[in-house]
């Protein structure tokens, strides 16, 4: 190859050589940069998921246009999200922080699943949480009713006490005249506190009164009382298991947080000691 002498002279110029080398370097750098451009890739699994989600909502497969729109939306979202993360917009965002915390909390639960309680666990829980499994106080009693719509109800009620068969005095009533194992609190709701107090305290096996209610006067005879007591273990087994598991989960979550605390130093402005876990 022969070049004109002028050209040769130019090529020999150090300036020209400098420019040429710069050009080559620039081209190489450009290619390199392009190779390093981050990729947004919707892989097959996600594509499948997008379509499945659509189908679940629309109850049919998407058309080609709909799929295009769906993808466009997904890609735009990804681009915006990536750019937001690059600019650090996620750092001071309340919703994102909460969402991440929630995800971590769920993830930690998955890491340590709560086991099924053993028989001994349930027994222990039953023993230590008696107040949660109490059958209310009940009473078995009869009463005789004297409506305050008629004159002298109290006097007639008192007089009935000295009859040979007090139960045959009085009048019919819309509410029952005898109760078997009725919850005392229901009696209070339906008759008033003065009446239910007598149901709770009257000596057993004997007619007493007269007692006033929201309806008039009564004499009553309590046959049997059962104080509030723990419900039998077997009858509350499934409640116990639920409560035990809920408690375990809470404990596990707290333990996880405590572990995290050990890995961080927590500082709160103006506070020598931040609140404990």
């Amino acid at each position, binding site marked *: 190859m022969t070049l004109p002498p002028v050209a040769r002279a130019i090529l020999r110029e150090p300036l020209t050589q400098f420019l040429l080398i710069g050009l080559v370097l620039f081209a190489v750098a450009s290619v390199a940069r392009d190779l390093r451009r981050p990729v947004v890739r919707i892989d097959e699994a996600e594509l499948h998921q997008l379509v499945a989600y659509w189908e679940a909502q629309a109850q049919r497969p998407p058309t080609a246009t709909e799929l295009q729109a769906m993808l466009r939306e997904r890609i735009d979202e990804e681009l915006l999200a990536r750019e937001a993360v690059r600019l650090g917009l996620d750092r001071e965002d309340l919703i994102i922080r*909460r969402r991440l915390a929630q995800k971590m909390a769920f993830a930690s639960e998955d890491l340590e699943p709560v086991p099924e309680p053993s028989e001994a666990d349930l027994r222990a829980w039953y023993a230590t949480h008696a107040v949660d499994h109490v059958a209310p106080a009940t009473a078995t009693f009869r009463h005789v009713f004297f*409506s305050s719509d008629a004159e002298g109800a109290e006097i007639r009620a008192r007089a009935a006490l000295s009859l040979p068969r007090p139960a*045959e005095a009085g009048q*019919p009533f819309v509410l029952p005249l005898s109760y078997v*194992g*009725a919850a005392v609190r229901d009696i209070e709701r339906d008759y008033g506190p003065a009446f239910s107090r007598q149901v709770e305290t009257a000596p057993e096996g004997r007619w007493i009164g007269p007692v006033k209610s*929201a309806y008039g006067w009564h004499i009553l005879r309590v046959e049997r009382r059962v104080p509030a007591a723990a419900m039998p273990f077997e009858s509350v087994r499934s409640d116990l298991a639920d409560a035990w598991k809920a408690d375990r989960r809470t404990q596990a979550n707290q333990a996880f947080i405590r572990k995290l605390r050990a890995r961080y130093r927590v500082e709160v402005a103006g506070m020598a000691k931040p609140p404990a876990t």
Partner: protein
Amino acid sequence: MRVNGNLAVSAIAGVSLVAIAVALSVSGPAAVASSPKTPAAEHTSGYNPERNAYFGDLHVHTKLSFDAYIFNVRASPDDAYRFAKGETIGHASGFDIRLAGGPLDFAAVTDHSEFIGAMEQANTPGTAISKVPGVSALFSSDPAEIGKAFAKFLGTIRDDTTPKEFKDPAIHARAWKEIREAAARNYAPGRFTTFVGYEFTSAPDGRNLHRNVIFKSADVPDLPYSSRESADPEELWKRMETWRAKGVEALAIPHNSNGSDGTMFETTRFNGAPMDRVYADLRRRNEPLVEITQIKGTSETHPSLSPNDEWAGFEIFESYIGSNKAVTKFAGGYVRDALKTGLLLQEKKGFNPYRFGFIGSSDTHNAAPGSVEERNYVSKVGRSDGLPVLRGSVPQGGARTWDPAPKDPPRFQNWGASGLAGVWAEENTRESIYDALRRRETFATSGPRMRVRFFASYDFPSDLLTRSDTVRQAYAHGVPMGGDLMKSRGKAPSFLVWGLRDPNGGYLQRAQIVKGWIENGVAREKVYDVACSDRLAVNSQTGRCPDNGATVDLATCAPSRFQGDVELRTVWTDPNFDARQRAFYYVRVLENPSCRWSTWDALRNGTPPNPALSPTVMERAWSSPIWYDPKA
């Protein structure tokens, strides 16, 4: 999916897919586990073969209803059951609420099946539904903005432009699961009964055709049948028949016929076709009851339909239920009129679609079953009417008088503190109470826990009222409320009427029997006073109890003393009975007048009661009817 993909989006898609998968995998009602607390064959402690009165609320909304959520209600189905059991819950306006009259015996959470649970999701950051344009505008704590958002959302339902995200079956399935689990968790046989239920919210052109669907047991369908599938109640009944064929038993209870503009009890089918026996049977099999009273008004009768009933104008609400549009057609919108229509159809066509018993309920949207106590009333739509000034019971802007009159009074001022369901059942269990609902041995009250017995017979013992086994004799010789009298062999039927006051309420003033019958092809009605308080006797000229003189001191809401009775008890024989005429009879028991909720609000505020409103009400109870059919 790439690890560095958008985490939030992938997580939500994942969660939704899981939820869909769960929803789809639950196939057939049998897959829904029965409550482990289902009682054994033995009876619970309150068992009474002569049946007890139990009080409940079968119309309750929680945060899972789209409207309740818009009204800022955040209380859950569990909260609703806790409230019914007498516990304290929070109100949307920031204060605590609790029943004054003690726990209820039973309740059903009946959220709107349409978009059930979707609003909560829409207000949860990060969900797909929360990103739908315009959704965030639905959530405000300002009552004016709430009203606008509610109207706007109703508009999208009407125009069928509700965003598709609200129709996500995965969201609905999750809410339905929450409802079923709350009902299972809170059911305590013998103490407190829950029912799984929902509201079918059909209102073509705003005319209310709503019904509540109540399931007998924990065996329920995977998802409710909603009015989005069809606005035609007949389609709902057909779906209920399909469920029944699979062992899923349910009944539907229509409500607010007063807001149907005459369409709830028409004489044609929804699709315009004429009714026939098949239709009447289908309707009766699925709708044995109506909700005769609730906060949005009482639907027993309207003064224009019953001009001779002096007590017809009780808590009448004359608007559409979702807007301020005025109702123009009262016939077809009220229960007494419908019972008469039913008799006429039976007479002329040989079938009767309108043979139903009565219940009342609240329709609370505050997750507050039974919150219908006049002196303890918070109305029903969350933050929209939670304060007296918002419900028209105290003057606007802190004013001390009603002069000048408010220009734009809130519709809530015409709502009543009303609606409880009463049932006569052997014990407080799902089985026993549901059976009572089915056989219509039910009554309704306007809020107080008044008990009403009602039996009919041709041969009650003459000493029925004074013997100690009145109720046993009544069952042995007669039919209870909701039942049918046999054909008369010449004798007029007698009716045992027995009302007992609410132990925390007022005293009773009178008991009445409302009779409807067919005479020469025309439906007639008459209200008989049958028992008077204070040892007064029915005036034979007027047919009415004389005034017992009971009054209320509006300055204190204290009733006058020594008027009214603890109980009203009588046996009444129909003086105008004609064995050839079809008829129905039901009882109405009236309390002495007492302060209306709006007067209690005013009293606490130290301002005069709103002069546009009645300062007092006469609380009442209605028994289910007993029918007489000469061809039976």
